[in-house]
């Protein structure tokens, strides 16, 4: 039963990803002009002469004069075999540029998600069980502060404190000596030393939101009759809490994975700029501004794929958690 559900759900993502790729391609094609018009404009700005014939030749070479559907087909058939095309601006294969940045983005997103859960889960439970206690009020206040504060502001404040009071090296994800070095154990340790700052910054607002969600869910469940039944069995309050109401309150919690992923990645752009993180966000923005079609397309497609995969993961987890979903 569960297996059929999972297989079915995975098969459904295939047409979904296909639709997503069309939308992604249409989006990057949507602004007027193409890479070459932007290129010509940059050249003209710096006073260089633009040779119209050369532009036309380039346009034909890149296939930019072809209709949408042909361009899409060329692109997507390449993507299916792992060829994301050439970045106009960098004159390099897109795949050379994106993988490390995507991996770091993903790593940052996953760590942030884990951090968020580690913070929100126990605090949310505490807040619900000790409703209207001083601790609950304190958490609620802090939570609203965390929600209200923009991430980049928190980043600036943390950076200031870090540099001025601790003399720490706060920008980026690596120390200078490791920036271009190949992966090794010391580089990984160095990453761990740096990653916690963006994780805390990005995690604050989503933790605050999740604490509220957990508290509200659990408050709904705490007074349900099955809790009384469990109490009448002689279960201790702690075991009872974790086995019954928390388990049921988890449902909406797990559903958040789906949207937390893309939100963490796209929402991290400004913070990534402020902290000069080598993640996907800044490069994506640059590619969009330059109308570097294949580079932007690859990022958007990967981000959308992450969203779809995030939804898939959360659906499968939900089915594992709640038999009622499985049996529908």
């Amino acid at each position, binding site marked *: 039963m569960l297996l059929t559900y999972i297989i079915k759900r995975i098969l459904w993502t295939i047409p979904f990803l296909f639709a997503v790729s069309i939308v992604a391609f249409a989006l990057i094609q949507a602004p007027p002009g193409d890479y070459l018009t932007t290129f010509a404009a940059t050249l003209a700005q710096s006073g260089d002469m633009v040779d119209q014939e050369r532009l036309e030749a380039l346009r034909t070479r890149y296939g930019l004069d072809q209709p949408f559907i042909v361009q899409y087909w060329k692109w997507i058939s390449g993507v299916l075999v792992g060829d994301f095309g050439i970045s106009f601006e960098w004159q390099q294969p897109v795949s050379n540029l994106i993988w490390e940045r995507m991996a770091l983005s993903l790593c940052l997103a996953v760590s942030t998600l884990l951090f968020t859960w580690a913070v929100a889960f126990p605090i949310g439970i505490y807040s619900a069980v000790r409703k209207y206690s001083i601790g609950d009020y304190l958490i609620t206040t802090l939570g609203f502060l965390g929600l209200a504060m923009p991430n980049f502001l928190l980043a600036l404040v943390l950076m200031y404190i870090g540099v001025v009071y601790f003399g720490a090296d706060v920008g980026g994800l690596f120390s200078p000596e490791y920036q271009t070095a190949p992966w090794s154990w010391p580089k990984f340790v160095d990453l761990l030393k740096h990653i916690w700052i963006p994780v805390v910054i990005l995690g604050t607002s989503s933790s605050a939101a999740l604490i509220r969600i957990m508290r509200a869910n659990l408050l709904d469940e705490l*007074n*349900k*009759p*099955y809790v*009384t*039944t*469990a*109490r*009448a*069995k*002689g*279960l*201790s*309050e702690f075991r009872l809490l974790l*086995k*019954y109401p928390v*388990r*049921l309150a988890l449902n909406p919690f797990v559903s958040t994975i789906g949207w937390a992923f893309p939100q963490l990645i796209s929402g991290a752009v400004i913070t990534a700029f402020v902290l000069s993180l080598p993640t996907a966000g800044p490069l994506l923005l640059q590619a969009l501004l330059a109308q570097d079609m294949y580079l932007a397309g690859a990022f958007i497609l990967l981000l959308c794929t992450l969203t779809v995969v995030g939804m898939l993961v959360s659906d499968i987890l939900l089915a594992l*958690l*709640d*038999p*009622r979903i499985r*049996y529908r």
Partner: protein
Amino acid sequence: MERIATADPGQVVLEVKGLVAEFPTRHGPFRAVDGVSFDLRAGETLCVVGESGSGKSVTARSILQIVDTPGRIVAGEVLLHRHRTARGTGAEETIDLARLEPRGKAIRAIRGRDIAMIFQEPMSSLSPVHTIGNQIAEVIRLHETVSKKEARARSIELLRQVEIPRPESAVDRYTFEFSGGMRQRAMIAMSLACNPSVLIADEPTTALDVTTQAEILDLIKRLQESHGMAVMLITHDMGVVAETADSIVVMRHGKLVERGSVEDIFYAPQHDYTKMLLQAVLDLDRPSERRLARRAVQAIGGPVVEIRGLVKEFDLRHGFMRRKGHVLKALDDIDLTLHEGENLGVVGESGSGKTTLGRCLLRVHDPSRGEMLYRASGGAVADVATASGNGLERIRRDIRMIFQDPFASLNPRMNVAQIIGEPLLVNGVASGAALRSRVAQLLDVVGLPAAAMERYPHAFSGGQRQRIGIARAIALEPRVIVADEATSALDVSLRTQVLDLLLELQERLGLSFIFISHDISVIRYFCDRVAVMFRGKVVEIGETEEVCTNPQHGYTKALLSAVPHPDPRHRGMLGRHRYEAGA
């Protein structure tokens, strides 16, 4: 199953003395239980009777100290005489449960082991995300050191004892895969897991159909005999009391009003409240005199609604090419006629299609086939099944509905004036000052003060809310009212009042009622004719008295024999008639 050591019958195993439980509120503490005392004896059943708000549930929960927060026990003793139970070691051992720390180990060791509890709503009282087996085995492993495998084997054995079919596979299933009756059986299996000496059942059958209720009560009785348990049964249904009780405690407003043996309470009640409760039940079990008197003066007129060949199918097919599932025939070729000034009862169990019938008549559901001819006051005939636009609007003005749940059917964010005025407003009948005076008049008709207008539904009791619902239903001066279980959520003493109000409105406004209920006694009181529904079909229809006293169809017989009689000398339920479909 090994023979269980039982306590000597008749021994007092649990004594409640001067129990007081309070809920702190803004206006000072509210006493939910106020000085209640009673005894539970091994092998005997004590019924605690009272209407909603009488504190009977809080009393039961106080025994195990599981009163919902912020409620707490302030005074009194709850003495468990363990040495007199099967668990006793021989030495004198009396524990005062009220003195124990509510979260402590001592009371937790008693919960589920010495004293077990069954709750009212079997759907929400069991966890929907754990298997039945998991929830039963949990109790066993909590109180006894046994392996998982052994606990599972015992769970299966327990499920077999409570007559759940195929217990080996049922043990791994979830509650939502069971019917209400099966869930309650699983709940009972869970409570019996550690052979408790006291079983507290809080309205265990209120959410169930009468036939299922009879089976569950029957089961509890038999298990009590084999296990020698003391049973405390909380109920508001005097019929259930008469069927099961050895002794009775009557409660009202948190106080114990009267206690005694079943004969004493039923045949020689001392307190006025007990008399009133019994009278309310007896009143309901016969035709309303008011209705009979009225019918003698004014005969029932010609047909208002004629239902012919009505079919409603729900498409439950799903999956690829809709090959899984089936089409459910909720209504299967229904023919019914409602006459002017008549009360037509529709009786049946849950799932029989009676609610669907009412909803089709209001076109909440669109019928699949058949016609429902409505004869307007001018004599024009329209088919409700195919009406649309203005035609349907006009019909809906004439056919109104009263709902079952007086809590859920009133919008908590609207005040009474808005609730009652809404149909008038949306139909453009009245607005402004005219609307207000009409609402005041309607409130007066249903016996509520005009001052009620500004208040919100939460400020009213169940009975008052149902009056608001009735005022809303009659606001447009309808000709037909569909009342779907309109009195089921009310206490017995309120039921007659509401039914009398409906009869009075019938006289004043010339209404005809389709009265949907699972409660035979209410139908008998209120309805001229009754249609018995079973699995989407009308199996029997006739004059109410005729059907009640001389049922023809096997299902009607089974239904009637399952109704508990409020007379302990006629415990007929156990020797009741059973009906199998297709038999």
